[in-house]
């Protein structure tokens, strides 16, 4: 990611999620040009949010060929934002995901983020500001965790779920609302010799259903962007597109949206120190 234009300052955003931690480095030119992504890093959060934040940032810096001292401002977001040392500001992941998604997909009016352990829908106005949001962080159903548990029950690699959905002859309906009960249901379906791929498709339908309901509650309307790890699952994407009756806009690195949004917030403050914080 070599840069040719002069960079006025380098800012960083770190998104400490319950499953993964991402870091993004932006170069701000200060002359009105959009910031450039210089480097990014991602690690598993594990038990040490502070350590994970440092590791993700180090990876991003290494990719950009920069050092910690080059970073003029750092904004932390995500569930573990409090644990990030040296953060100049802490902003919620709702605001950051919205900003990040908006940079990557400027047309988006709704952002659906399905992460490891939570899911959220963020509604934006024409100017990209957050006007409403709805979250599910109490229940594993409809999150990446649900798919993780089911993949284990099926004996299938989590990364393979999306591909196998495409080969499914149809979908087996999963009726349980709860992850624990759904797992038992999947085990029974396997015992009843139902095709694994059809079960997988049924699970993706279930996740899509929960997400669509959340979206309706928040009042989300197209164009809809999708971020978070589950956006890489083609099966869920397809099922969700069918439910919402719209194509989903998905950035190449859907998990980076939060960190990028945090870095953008850092860029705002770095570009003009007296300017008010994001969201104003």
């Amino acid at each position, binding site marked *: 990611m070599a840069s040719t234009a002069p960079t006025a300052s380098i800012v960083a955003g770190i998104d400490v999620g319950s499953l993964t931690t991402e870091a993004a480095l932006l170069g701000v030119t200060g002359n009105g040009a959009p910031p450039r992504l210089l480097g990014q890093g991602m690690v598993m959060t594990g038990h040490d949010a502070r350590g994970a934040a440092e590791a993700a940032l180090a990876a991003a810096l290494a990719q950009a060929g920069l050092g910690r001292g080059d970073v003029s401002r750092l904004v932390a977001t995500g569930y573990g934002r409090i644990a990030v040392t040296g953060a100049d500001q802490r902003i*919620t992941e709702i*605001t950051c995901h919205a900003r990040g998604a908006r940079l990557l997909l400027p047309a988006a009016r709704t952002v659906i983020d399905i992460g490891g352990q939570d899911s959220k829908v963020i509604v934006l106005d024409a100017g990209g500001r957050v006007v409403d949001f709805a979250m599910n*962080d109490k229940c594993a159903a409809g999150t990446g965790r649900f798919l993780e548990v089911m993949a284990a029950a099926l004996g299938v690699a989590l990364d393979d779920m999306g591909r196998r959905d495409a080969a499914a002859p149809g979908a087996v309906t999963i009726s349980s609302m709860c992850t624990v009960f759904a797992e038992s249901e999947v085990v029974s379906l396997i015992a009843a010799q139902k095709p694994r791929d059809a079960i997988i498709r049924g699970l993706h339908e279930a996740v899509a259903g929960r997400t669509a309901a959340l979206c309706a509650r928040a009042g989300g309307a197209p164009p809809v962007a999708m971020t978070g790890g589950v956006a890489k699952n083609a099966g869920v994407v397809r099922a969700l597109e069918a439910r919402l009756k719209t194509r989903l806009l998905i950035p190449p690195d859907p998990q980076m949206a939060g960190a990028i949004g945090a870095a953008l917030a850092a860029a705002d403050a770095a570009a003009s120190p007296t300017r*008010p914080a994001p969201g104003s």
Partner: protein
Amino acid sequence: MGTKDRWAGLKTQAQRAFLEHLAPRLVRSGLLYDVLERLTRLRQADYPLKATAVLARSGLLLARRAYSRRYRRRVVWTNAFAPTEILYAMDLLPFSLEVAAATAASLGLSDHLLDVAERHWYSSDACAFHRAAIGAALAGLLPEPAALLCTSHICDGAPKAFARLGEVAARPVFTLDTPAVGGASGTRARAAAEAYLARQIAEAARDISRATGAPLRPERLRGACALSNEARRWMLECAALRRSRPAPIPGGQAFGFLFAMFQMQGSAAAVEVYRALADELAARRREGRAAVPRENARLLWLHLRPYYPARIFEFLEQGQGAVVTFEEFSHVYWEELDPHDPFTSLARKCLSHFGYGEASRRALAVAALAQEYDVGGVIHFSHWGCRQSCGGVRLIKDELRRRGVPFLALDGDCVDRRSYAEGQTLTRLAAFLEMLGVPAGSGGAPMAARG
């Protein structure tokens, strides 16, 4: 098992023993109230508002009397909207069970009470206020009542819970059936509803008088209505003073006064409490003293709040300068009572509650309050199991959206702290404030490093 585990186990056993054996006796001991009253007087300066000290003293006196032998046959268990005026007119003591549940939660007792209720088959889908009240009744922690008085508004869980409570206490229950009439309903239906409810109130008053032996005298009824009207005037004064910019007191401190709203209408004590609050608000306005050093946002709060320790208001108000300028339940929605026609005017008061009946009533009332208090956002605390309030959230949100006012529905439980997730709750609040343009706290995220 290590020493630490053994100690924790002993602590739990001690707590349980205390709650099951000592607490019912302690709560009936005059000595407890002597101590608490002394503490209140000594710690007066610690109260954020002088009026809070007045409120605390009134509350303690009420509790002391309710549990004392002298008032043995003079306590009546009530729900939040029961017309307490008729009880004060007979020198009876209303004991509001939702207030009791809230108090138990603030003392950290609600876990135990909810457990007791659950052991008796009360599903955790029902409102925790009522479950905790039933638990408290089963645990012998409530003062023995002579009767129970409740209204079917604004929630229909209340009369059902009260029917069960009446069985636990083995006392008669008087249920005032409030028709859902108002707003769009025709005049004839409204008049019929008033007559129906007035008749019920009159009969209940008579029957309670008989059950307790307390005489019901017209002049005392007039007096109670007059006192209710006087307190109402002071409530209106307080409501008007709280419209100032910047807000004179934080919502977190104002919430406690709902105790008087639900428990004390028709008594001289309510007049004292609200007059003290009005005086203090006026003084603060004169002196230019604001609720918080920098008012970054003005909010309106709907429904109730967690009563166990939770840092919601601390985070919003002291932390972020987002002041809750007013709360829904402090809104004076009724006309002055006519002391010469007490039952009809009390019926009118019940019927005019904007939270019951056509759901649009509440949406419009909330929108009007949002405008009056010039708020930048409205927060609805969606108490689990409270179907009367949560069901209409979408209509409120839409009405506010039409007027450009941002809205947040915050899920939670007012009484059951086991379902409270502080990090998640504060994240939602922080995101909402970010939406409103309140500058995010730098480095000062709501949670200090806690274990």
